[in-house]
């Protein structure tokens, strides 16, 4: 799915050891799992299912290890997506993925401000309302407002960072393309043990 290389480049720049997986062989040895991605929801879910990634991701999360979804990698965590045809998602964060319904240009592309609604270790030291790089036509509407970490202002408040309340965090924007503030999020994630609070 999509441009994995940029995400790898960013973590390598931060001095982290990165492995990419086309099959699930060895994936259980990873301390942190990242699902990046651009593309369409149904195709992505089909790929993830066929290759056993859905089960591998569930096992990683069940072991309380940190998981980060980026862009489409966030959206597939939902119960269901409506892009092209209704498609079941992985269901790690309850909610639906819907088409952006704002009277503005779709896709939403460019630098937009992110307003934090809750504190989270992965977003430590990232100021409120600094800009991140977005590219998307669909957005994740969480069923439980307690899962909402941040919104962006595109016609109205659009959810753009979520958590399952445990070891899963997900962002709609691209930290790997958002310069210093983006790299800080990736670094925080790499240092995170998957637990909340102190």
């Amino acid at each position, binding site marked *: 799915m999509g441009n994995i*290389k940029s995400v790898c480049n960013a973590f390598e720049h931060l001095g982290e050891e990165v492995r990419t997986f086309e099959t699930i062989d060895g994936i259980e040895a990873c301390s942190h799992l990242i699902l990046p991605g651009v593309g369409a929801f149904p195709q992505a879910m089909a790929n993830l299912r066929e290759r056993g990634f859905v089960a591998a991701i569930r096992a990683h999360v069940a072991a309380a290890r940190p998981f980060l979804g980026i862009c489409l990698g966030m959206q597939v965590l939902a119960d269901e997506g409506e892009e092209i045809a209704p498609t079941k998602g992985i269901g790690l964060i309850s909610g639906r993925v819907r088409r952006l319904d704002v009277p503005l240009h779709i896709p*939403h592309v460019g630098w*937009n401000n992110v307003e934090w609604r809750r504190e989270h270790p992965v977003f430590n030291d990232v100021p409120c309302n600094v800009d991140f790089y977005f590219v998307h036509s669909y957005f994740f509407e969480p069923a439980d407002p307690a899962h909402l970490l941040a919104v962006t202002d595109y016609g109205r408040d659009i959810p753009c960072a979520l958590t399952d309340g445990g070891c899963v965090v997900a962002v709609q924007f691209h930290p790997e393309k958002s310069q210093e503030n983006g790299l800080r999020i990736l670094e925080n994630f790499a240092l995170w043990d998957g637990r909340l609070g102190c």
Partner: protein
Amino acid sequence: MLKSRIIPVLLLQNGRMVKGRKFSDFRDTGDPVSASKVYNHQDADELVFIDIEASRAGARKNRDVLYRIIEKVSVVCFMPLCVGGGINSVDDVVSLIRIGADKVLINTAALENPDLVHEASLAVGSQSIVVGIDVKKIDGRYVVHTHCGQAPRPELDLASCVRLMEASGAGEILINSIDRDGMMEGYDLELLKQVRVQTDLPVIACGGAGHFRHLYEALIDAKVDAVACASMFHFGDNSPLRAKAFLKNKGVLLKKI
């Protein structure tokens, strides 16, 4: 709210960065990878790379050089990268995205074959397809040019081109004035306004910036979404940081870091 973008343009020739005037008289302006790093630190919002050799004389000889540069840039610059020059197939588009480009800039091939824009947008998404249109004023009329400004195409009506590119799946339009290129006397605002009313797509102004006030005119008077600059940053001590300080004082909404 989406922010106005400031985009340094890096023209590439034989692995070096160059800049000319009116699409000719190119001068060496340094190493593109070092320049990209500097622009990254100077808070540029995006970078555009154009391989100016690639679309001339049908040459594809320096593809490897371009690819190596983009690969090197993508490990030091964590911002959107747009790459163009001589792209004429979906394979070109996919390869560039795969090595680290976020967007591709298609010019001649898009205008000659709008189906390519359509197919490329299906392959990588409209958001990654920027169509570049080079324009020169001849006898009071804006004439579209292809092949890096070398081929006038009077049969292509500018307004129709813009609409056709949008309908074909382009995600953004970069409009470049050949007359203003490298002259540093301001963007062709009339040209930008004509393009602006033809499309809802983001429009990037290119060609002519020499003073920060030119950026303001394009963003506010001509209502473009982004301003591309080369000479202004290459020659002299202006930088995206200083441009942004000027624009912020005038109330333009820009990326906050």
